[in-house]
Protein backbone atom coordinates (compact mmCIF):
# COMPACT_ATOMS: atom_id res chain seq x y z
CA UNK A 1 0.00 0.00 0.00
CA UNK A 2 1.35 3.42 -0.92
CA UNK A 3 2.32 5.68 1.91
CA UNK A 4 0.81 9.04 2.64
CA UNK A 5 1.96 11.86 4.85
CA UNK A 6 -0.10 13.09 7.77
CA UNK A 7 0.72 15.78 10.31
CA UNK A 8 0.72 14.03 13.66
CA UNK A 9 1.00 16.24 16.75
CA UNK A 10 2.57 18.94 14.62
CA UNK A 11 5.09 16.70 12.84
CA UNK A 12 5.04 15.08 9.40
CA UNK A 13 4.68 11.34 9.58
CA UNK A 14 4.30 8.60 6.99
CA UNK A 15 1.30 6.31 7.30
CA UNK A 16 -0.05 3.59 5.02
CA UNK A 17 -2.74 4.93 2.68
CA UNK A 18 -6.19 4.09 3.95
CA UNK A 19 -5.05 3.67 7.56
CA UNK A 20 -7.74 4.12 10.19
CA UNK A 21 -7.29 6.09 13.40
CA UNK A 22 -7.38 2.82 15.32
CA UNK A 23 -4.67 1.43 13.04
CA UNK A 24 -2.53 4.50 13.66
CA UNK A 25 -2.90 4.15 17.43
CA UNK A 26 -1.96 0.47 17.23
CA UNK A 27 1.15 1.37 15.20
CA UNK A 28 2.05 3.89 17.88
CA UNK A 29 1.47 1.35 20.65
CA UNK A 30 -1.23 3.49 22.28
CA UNK A 31 -4.28 2.15 24.09
CA UNK A 32 -7.36 3.65 22.37
CA UNK A 33 -9.12 3.85 25.72
CA UNK A 34 -6.61 6.31 27.13
CA UNK A 35 -6.27 8.91 24.41
CA UNK A 36 -8.40 11.49 22.64
CA UNK A 37 -8.00 12.10 18.92
CA UNK A 38 -8.74 15.15 16.84
CA UNK A 39 -8.58 15.07 13.03
CA UNK A 40 -8.53 18.40 11.20
CA UNK A 41 -9.91 20.12 14.29
CA UNK A 42 -12.78 17.67 14.85
CA UNK A 43 -12.75 15.45 17.90
CA UNK A 44 -13.56 11.81 17.22
CA UNK A 45 -15.59 9.60 19.48
CA UNK A 46 -13.74 6.52 20.60
CA UNK A 47 -16.21 4.18 18.94
CA UNK A 48 -15.47 5.88 15.60
CA UNK A 49 -11.72 5.13 15.69
CA UNK A 50 -11.97 1.92 13.58
CA UNK A 51 -13.95 3.51 10.76
CA UNK A 52 -12.25 6.92 10.74
CA UNK A 53 -9.99 6.66 7.67
CA UNK A 54 -7.06 9.05 7.45
CA UNK A 55 -6.25 10.94 4.26
CA UNK A 56 -3.18 12.66 2.86
CA UNK A 57 -2.23 15.81 4.81
CA UNK A 58 -4.73 15.19 7.61
CA UNK A 59 -3.80 17.06 10.77
CA UNK A 60 -4.06 14.59 13.63
CA UNK A 61 -3.74 15.37 17.33
CA UNK A 62 -3.41 12.54 19.83
CA UNK A 63 -3.53 13.60 23.46
CA UNK A 64 -3.51 11.86 26.81
CA UNK A 65 -3.66 12.72 30.50
CA UNK A 66 -0.43 13.71 32.22
CA UNK A 67 0.23 14.98 35.73
CA UNK A 68 -1.10 18.47 36.37
CA UNK A 69 -2.75 20.71 38.93
Amino acid at each position, binding site marked *: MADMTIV*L*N*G*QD*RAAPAGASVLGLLET*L*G*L*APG*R*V*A*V*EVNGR*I*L*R*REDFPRAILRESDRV*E*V*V*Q*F*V*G*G*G
Partner: protein
Amino acid sequence: MKSDALTIAGRSYPSRLIVGTGKYPTLEIMKRAIEASGASMVTVAVRRVELSRRSGPSLLDFIDTGKVALLPNTAGCSTAEEAVRTARLGREAGLSDLVKLEVIGDEKTLFPDNEGLVQATRVLVKEGFTVLPYTNDDLVVAKRLRDAGAAAVMPLAAPIGSGLGVQNPANLRIILEEIRDIPIIVDAGVGTASDASMVMEMGADGVLMNTGIAGAGDPVKMARAMRLAIEAGRLAFEAGRIPKKLYATASSPVEGIVR
Protein backbone atom coordinates in the same frame (compact mmCIF):
# COMPACT_ATOMS: atom_id res chain seq x y z
CA MET B 1 -16.74 12.33 63.53
CA LYS B 2 -16.90 13.09 59.84
CA SER B 3 -17.71 16.40 58.28
CA ASP B 4 -20.32 16.46 55.53
CA ALA B 5 -19.55 15.85 51.85
CA LEU B 6 -18.78 18.24 49.03
CA THR B 7 -21.54 18.46 46.44
CA ILE B 8 -20.79 19.69 42.92
CA ALA B 9 -23.56 19.78 40.34
CA GLY B 10 -25.64 17.30 42.32
CA ARG B 11 -22.79 14.79 42.69
CA SER B 12 -21.40 14.13 46.14
CA TYR B 13 -17.70 13.72 46.95
CA PRO B 14 -16.73 12.43 50.42
CA SER B 15 -13.57 14.55 50.62
CA ARG B 16 -13.38 18.33 50.41
CA LEU B 17 -9.79 18.11 49.25
CA ILE B 18 -8.97 17.99 45.54
CA VAL B 19 -5.34 17.24 44.68
CA GLY B 20 -3.23 17.67 41.59
CA THR B 21 -1.08 14.98 39.97
CA GLY B 22 1.81 17.13 38.73
CA LYS B 23 5.35 17.62 39.95
CA TYR B 24 5.71 14.57 42.19
CA PRO B 25 9.20 13.05 42.46
CA THR B 26 7.80 9.74 41.14
CA LEU B 27 4.42 8.35 40.09
CA GLU B 28 4.64 5.85 42.95
CA ILE B 29 4.94 8.71 45.48
CA MET B 30 2.04 10.46 43.76
CA LYS B 31 -0.08 7.35 44.16
CA ARG B 32 0.69 7.08 47.86
CA ALA B 33 0.11 10.81 48.37
CA ILE B 34 -3.31 10.64 46.71
CA GLU B 35 -4.24 7.77 49.01
CA ALA B 36 -2.95 9.62 52.08
CA SER B 37 -4.84 12.78 51.09
CA GLY B 38 -8.15 10.93 51.01
CA ALA B 39 -9.08 13.06 47.98
CA SER B 40 -12.08 11.92 45.95
CA MET B 41 -11.10 14.01 42.92
CA VAL B 42 -7.73 14.60 41.23
CA THR B 43 -6.78 17.03 38.50
CA VAL B 44 -4.98 15.93 35.35
CA ALA B 45 -3.58 17.87 32.39
CA VAL B 46 -4.26 17.14 28.72
CA ARG B 47 -1.12 17.00 26.55
CA ARG B 48 0.04 15.69 23.20
CA VAL B 49 1.34 12.12 23.36
CA GLU B 50 5.12 12.28 23.02
CA LEU B 51 5.86 10.22 19.96
CA SER B 52 9.63 10.45 20.07
CA ARG B 53 9.89 8.92 23.51
CA ARG B 54 9.32 5.23 24.17
CA SER B 55 6.10 5.07 26.15
CA GLY B 56 6.84 4.58 29.84
CA PRO B 57 4.27 3.92 32.56
CA SER B 58 1.07 5.88 32.13
CA LEU B 59 -0.26 8.31 34.73
CA LEU B 60 -3.54 6.42 34.79
CA ASP B 61 -1.76 3.24 35.93
CA PHE B 62 -1.20 5.07 39.22
CA ILE B 63 -4.69 6.47 39.79
CA ASP B 64 -7.53 4.30 41.06
CA THR B 65 -10.30 5.78 38.94
CA GLY B 66 -12.78 3.58 40.75
CA LYS B 67 -12.10 5.61 43.89
CA VAL B 68 -11.21 9.08 42.62
CA ALA B 69 -12.85 11.15 39.90
CA LEU B 70 -10.63 12.70 37.22
CA LEU B 71 -10.85 16.45 36.80
CA PRO B 72 -9.12 17.35 33.50
CA ASN B 73 -7.76 20.88 33.41
CA THR B 74 -7.08 23.38 30.65
CA ALA B 75 -3.76 24.50 32.15
CA GLY B 76 -1.51 26.42 29.82
CA CYS B 77 -4.36 27.71 27.66
CA SER B 78 -4.28 31.45 27.10
CA THR B 79 -7.45 31.96 25.06
CA ALA B 80 -11.06 30.85 25.49
CA GLU B 81 -10.80 28.94 22.19
CA GLU B 82 -7.75 26.95 23.31
CA ALA B 83 -9.39 26.18 26.63
CA VAL B 84 -12.62 25.00 24.99
CA ARG B 85 -10.67 22.77 22.60
CA THR B 86 -8.62 21.28 25.44
CA ALA B 87 -11.74 20.74 27.55
CA ARG B 88 -13.38 18.83 24.69
CA LEU B 89 -10.29 16.64 24.27
CA GLY B 90 -10.22 16.02 28.02
CA ARG B 91 -13.85 14.97 28.00
CA GLU B 92 -13.20 12.48 25.22
CA ALA B 93 -10.09 11.09 26.93
CA GLY B 94 -11.74 10.76 30.34
CA LEU B 95 -15.39 10.33 29.41
CA SER B 96 -16.45 12.78 32.09
CA ASP B 97 -18.07 16.19 31.88
CA LEU B 98 -15.97 17.70 34.66
CA VAL B 99 -13.44 20.35 33.69
CA LYS B 100 -11.19 22.63 35.70
CA LEU B 101 -11.22 25.65 33.44
CA GLU B 102 -8.07 27.75 33.25
CA VAL B 103 -7.54 30.65 30.87
CA ILE B 104 -4.23 32.23 31.74
CA GLY B 105 -3.83 35.95 31.14
CA ASP B 106 -0.28 36.51 32.36
CA GLU B 107 2.65 34.11 32.18
CA LYS B 108 4.62 35.40 35.15
CA THR B 109 1.78 35.39 37.68
CA LEU B 110 -0.46 32.82 35.96
CA PHE B 111 -3.35 35.10 36.87
CA PRO B 112 -6.52 34.27 34.94
CA ASP B 113 -7.91 36.09 31.93
CA ASN B 114 -11.35 36.82 33.33
CA GLU B 115 -12.95 37.78 30.04
CA GLY B 116 -11.76 34.56 28.38
CA LEU B 117 -12.81 32.58 31.43
CA VAL B 118 -16.41 33.81 31.34
CA GLN B 119 -16.58 33.31 27.58
CA ALA B 120 -15.26 29.73 27.74
CA THR B 121 -17.56 28.93 30.69
CA ARG B 122 -20.61 29.94 28.63
CA VAL B 123 -19.57 27.76 25.68
CA LEU B 124 -18.72 24.70 27.79
CA VAL B 125 -21.86 24.92 29.95
CA LYS B 126 -23.93 24.94 26.77
CA GLU B 127 -22.11 21.77 25.71
CA GLY B 128 -23.04 20.03 28.95
CA PHE B 129 -19.77 20.39 30.84
CA THR B 130 -19.59 20.73 34.60
CA VAL B 131 -17.33 23.76 34.66
CA LEU B 132 -15.08 24.58 37.63
CA PRO B 133 -13.23 27.78 36.73
CA TYR B 134 -9.98 28.81 38.39
CA THR B 135 -10.31 32.54 38.99
CA ASN B 136 -8.88 35.34 41.07
CA ASP B 137 -10.40 36.48 44.34
CA ASP B 138 -12.81 38.94 42.77
CA LEU B 139 -16.49 38.86 43.69
CA VAL B 140 -17.71 40.44 40.46
CA VAL B 141 -15.89 37.88 38.30
CA ALA B 142 -17.07 35.07 40.58
CA LYS B 143 -20.68 36.22 40.13
CA ARG B 144 -20.27 36.43 36.34
CA LEU B 145 -18.90 32.89 36.30
CA ARG B 146 -21.79 31.67 38.41
CA ASP B 147 -24.27 33.45 36.15
CA ALA B 148 -22.55 31.87 33.13
CA GLY B 149 -23.39 28.48 34.63
CA ALA B 150 -20.22 27.46 36.48
CA ALA B 151 -20.86 24.53 38.84
CA ALA B 152 -18.40 25.98 41.38
CA VAL B 153 -16.05 28.92 41.49
CA MET B 154 -12.40 28.38 42.40
CA PRO B 155 -10.70 31.57 43.56
CA LEU B 156 -6.97 31.56 44.21
CA ALA B 157 -5.47 32.06 47.66
CA ALA B 158 -2.20 33.22 46.07
CA PRO B 159 -0.42 32.64 42.74
CA ILE B 160 -0.25 29.03 41.50
CA GLY B 161 2.66 27.14 43.05
CA SER B 162 3.65 30.08 45.28
CA GLY B 163 2.79 28.51 48.63
CA LEU B 164 2.10 31.98 50.02
CA GLY B 165 -1.20 31.09 51.68
CA VAL B 166 -4.24 33.38 51.63
CA GLN B 167 -3.02 36.82 50.60
CA ASN B 168 -6.36 38.55 50.67
CA PRO B 169 -8.61 37.03 53.34
CA ALA B 170 -11.09 39.90 53.12
CA ASN B 171 -11.77 39.29 49.42
CA LEU B 172 -12.18 35.60 50.05
CA ARG B 173 -14.59 36.25 52.93
CA ILE B 174 -16.65 38.53 50.73
CA ILE B 175 -16.91 35.86 48.03
CA LEU B 176 -17.86 33.25 50.63
CA GLU B 177 -20.55 35.52 52.09
CA GLU B 178 -22.00 36.69 48.81
CA ILE B 179 -22.05 33.45 46.81
CA ARG B 180 -24.03 30.82 48.68
CA ASP B 181 -25.69 28.84 45.90
CA ILE B 182 -22.64 27.07 44.42
CA PRO B 183 -19.47 25.73 46.08
CA ILE B 184 -16.45 27.99 46.50
CA ILE B 185 -13.27 25.94 46.24
CA VAL B 186 -10.00 27.68 47.02
CA ASP B 187 -7.55 26.78 44.28
CA ALA B 188 -3.84 27.61 44.30
CA GLY B 189 -1.41 29.18 46.72
CA VAL B 190 -1.88 26.86 49.70
CA GLY B 191 1.57 26.19 51.19
CA THR B 192 0.99 24.25 54.37
CA ALA B 193 -1.68 22.71 56.59
CA SER B 194 -2.63 25.91 58.43
CA ASP B 195 -3.38 27.65 55.09
CA ALA B 196 -5.84 24.89 54.27
CA SER B 197 -7.43 24.96 57.74
CA MET B 198 -7.76 28.72 57.59
CA VAL B 199 -9.80 28.77 54.38
CA MET B 200 -11.97 25.89 55.55
CA GLU B 201 -12.64 27.72 58.85
CA MET B 202 -13.69 30.72 56.78
CA GLY B 203 -16.33 28.54 55.16
CA ALA B 204 -14.76 27.48 51.90
CA ASP B 205 -16.43 24.37 50.51
CA GLY B 206 -13.16 22.77 49.48
CA VAL B 207 -9.53 23.27 48.59
CA LEU B 208 -7.61 22.28 45.47
CA MET B 209 -3.84 21.99 45.73
CA ASN B 210 -0.91 20.44 43.94
CA THR B 211 2.50 21.97 44.66
CA GLY B 212 1.84 22.27 48.41
CA ILE B 213 1.81 18.46 48.55
CA ALA B 214 3.93 17.41 45.58
CA GLY B 215 6.74 19.85 46.41
CA ALA B 216 6.87 19.09 50.15
CA GLY B 217 9.90 17.33 51.62
CA ASP B 218 7.72 14.27 52.25
CA PRO B 219 4.70 14.52 49.93
CA VAL B 220 2.89 11.53 51.46
CA LYS B 221 3.16 12.98 54.97
CA MET B 222 2.06 16.41 53.75
CA ALA B 223 -0.90 14.83 51.97
CA ARG B 224 -2.04 13.38 55.29
CA ALA B 225 -1.46 16.74 57.01
CA MET B 226 -3.64 18.43 54.39
CA ARG B 227 -6.36 15.85 54.81
CA LEU B 228 -6.45 16.45 58.57
CA ALA B 229 -6.24 20.23 58.09
CA ILE B 230 -9.22 20.23 55.72
CA GLU B 231 -11.25 18.07 58.10
CA ALA B 232 -10.28 20.13 61.14
CA GLY B 233 -11.03 23.40 59.41
CA ARG B 234 -14.39 22.18 58.16
CA LEU B 235 -15.41 20.83 61.57
CA ALA B 236 -14.43 24.14 63.21
CA PHE B 237 -16.51 26.01 60.65
CA GLU B 238 -19.51 23.75 61.24
CA ALA B 239 -19.07 23.96 65.03
CA GLY B 240 -18.98 27.77 65.03
CA ARG B 241 -16.03 29.47 66.67
CA ILE B 242 -16.25 31.70 69.77
CA PRO B 243 -16.28 35.45 69.22
CA LYS B 244 -12.91 37.17 69.58
CA LYS B 245 -12.59 39.47 72.63
CA LEU B 246 -9.79 41.78 73.60
CA TYR B 247 -9.78 40.90 77.33
CA ALA B 248 -9.70 37.69 79.34
CA THR B 249 -12.69 35.72 80.61
CA ALA B 250 -11.78 33.24 83.36
CA SER B 251 -12.45 29.59 82.57
CA SER B 252 -12.42 28.48 86.24
CA PRO B 253 -14.95 29.60 88.90
CA VAL B 254 -14.17 32.95 90.48
CA GLU B 255 -15.78 31.88 93.79
CA GLY B 256 -14.26 29.55 96.37
CA ILE B 257 -10.67 30.46 95.83
CA VAL B 258 -8.58 29.46 98.90
CA ARG B 259 -7.08 32.56 100.41
